[in-house]
């Protein structure tokens, strides 16, 4: 005798669970992936963005292999050299190879950006869901807090946090952790607002009422039923936020507030390059190019994703 009410769980999304086999499920996943790839390919911005993001990730992961020199070791015999076969991007005033520094910096910058966005998601999504789903007095209180939080200009908060972190003179690891937390906290209200909008819209739909009627707990409905339908804007916003986090990190390092000195960092390298702008302009070009490439890749990919996932806002 077939069961009438089955709690949805991984593995039994099919209507008739008796027919679902691992082979069928794999085939379904394969088809979904192929569909996704086709959608990505159709949208030009997404394709270019995806390729750029992929190459960026590749560079970051393969950094130890593609870097030609030690990024931190100073070598005064080879300082301030122009780009050449030995030093693809030239050397800076300490004799460090800029290509190696740029490549190693990509690891650090991407890690911080990804972690910061994840912190934002981990904080913002539950907050937004609970805020929107439960409503009532909670809605007003949380609304006020988030509004006030949002009203604080982001970059000034990061400046404060970074100055504080620097003042404590922590080790590189804790310095980075502090930065990630500060950046993540800055991301939370935006994401919470976004999730709240989606959840509010979904809350009125029939399946929510149906779930309620069958006796599911509020928490279950909010997180297992409504939230999966709100994923698109979260994904898009997170991708674009990755780009902006990179910009923020670079700006903070440019001002000297990021990692302490010998750590390879695009912003810090640009700051060093300022002294030699008249004599060696190439010092300023490459780190900036790296930042622009990285941010551009996430922006293009995010834009493309937005067009794919929400065709109503699509332009073409």
């Amino acid at each position, binding site marked *: 005798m077939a069961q009438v009410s089955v709690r949805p769980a991984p593995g039994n999304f099919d209507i008739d669970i008796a027919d679902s086999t691992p082979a069928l499920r794999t085939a379904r996943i394969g088809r979904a992936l192929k569909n996704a790839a086709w959608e990505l390919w159709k949208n030009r911005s997404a394709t270019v963005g995806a390729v750029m993001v992929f190459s960026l990730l590749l560079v970051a992961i393969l950094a130890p292999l593609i870097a030609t020199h030690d990024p931190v070791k100073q070598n005064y015999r080879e300082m301030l050299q122009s780009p050449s076969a030995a030093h693809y991007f030239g050397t800076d005033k300490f004799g460090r190879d800029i290509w190696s520094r740029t490549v190693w910096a990509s690891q650090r910058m991407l890690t911080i950006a990804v972690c910061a966005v994840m912190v934002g998601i981990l904080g913002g999504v539950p907050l937004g869901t609970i805020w929107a789903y439960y409503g009532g007095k909670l809605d007003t209180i949380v609304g*006020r807090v988030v*509004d*006030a*939080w949002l*009203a*604080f*200009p*982001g*970059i*000034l*908060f990061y*400046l*404060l946090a970074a*100055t*504080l972190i620097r*003042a*404590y003179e922590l080790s590189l690891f804790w310095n980075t952790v502090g930065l990630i937390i500060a950046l993540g906290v800055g991301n939370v209200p935006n994401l919470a607002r976004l999730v709240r909008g989606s959840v509010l819209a979904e809350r009125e739909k029939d399946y929510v009422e149906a779930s309620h009627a069958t006796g599911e707990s509020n928490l279950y409905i909010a997180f297992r039923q409504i939230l999966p339908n709100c994923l698109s804007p979260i994904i898009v916003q997170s991708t674009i936020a990755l*780009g902006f986090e990179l*910009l923020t990190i*670079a*700006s903070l390092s*440019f*001002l*000297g*507030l990021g990692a302490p000195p010998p750590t390879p960092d695009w*912003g810090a390298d*640009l700051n060093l*390059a*300022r002294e030699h*702008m*008249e004599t060696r*302009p190439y010092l*300023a*070009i490459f780190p*900036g190019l790296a*930042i*622009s490439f990285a*941010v*551009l890749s996430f*922006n*293009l990919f995010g*834009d493309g994703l937005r067009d794919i996932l929400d065709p109503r806002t699509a*332009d*073409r």
Partner: protein
Amino acid sequence: MLRYIIYRLLQLIPVLLLVSIVVFAFMKMLPGDVIDALAGEAEAHDPARRAALEKQLGLDKPIYVQYFIWLGKIVLSGDFGKSITTRRSIGVEVFKRIPATVYLAVAAVLISLLIAVPLGTLAALKRRTMVDYTVTTGAVVGISIPQFWFAILCVLFFALYLGWLPASEYYSPFDDPWLGLKHLLLPASALGVRLAAITTRLTRASMLDEVRKDYVDTARSVGLPEWRVIFKYTLRNALIPTVTVAGLQFGGLLGGTVIIETIFAWPGIGLTLYDAIVSRDYPTVQAGILILATVYVLVNLIVDITYRLLNPRIRLA
């Protein structure tokens, strides 16, 4: 409408309080003992002298009392304390530098509007042509380029390579308008490029929406010349949300002033803030952030209210 304005004005208070609390908390969380910093060796270790110094600085009171004293001094008498590096009153110094930053920010906004509105409109009207693709790609690139890198590139190209524009120093427009303008151009452009890119995308999107509306067809069918339809009606309507969102981007501009003023040695609040951060002059850092944050909140409020006044649908609701 009036109710909304009052509501927003009331909402200002908790926001500004939050800002002041965050800034105060920052100061209190800094490592290092103020007593140790100020007092000499002997005094620091002598408990009686220590207690006396604490009393003098007001550090013996509970923390919320300290907060209110600090806040009271700022709000009631504009006393931000003394700078650690220059030993002069912070309030006077900082307020002297506000005009330069305002000048820069306003110029940046003007430049960005001058670039963005024509380009965005053009892209919207010539949709899906090479012009459109160029403008949209340019806009995405403009958003992705770090402002400080763009500033450095501008300096490299226009100041060092071509020698057309100067790369530093500030001349007040009241003293010498032409010189002031020349020195303003590079920093304001560097500050405005991001805003220009965002505004271009917005203008384009708004125009695309507007042009599809019924009243445009009506105007055309009545026989109005095309340029009149576009400029007198469509553009004006499209500009309202565009300028609003652009105004709300002002916060990004504030962050940019710190970096741009550092690069161009522009004597505004941003440079003061940066110098204070570097020289660990924390009272000045506090004051700078407090002032900038307050300006940001106020500008947001003004933009929001202006938008609601300009948009008849909301004003008359």
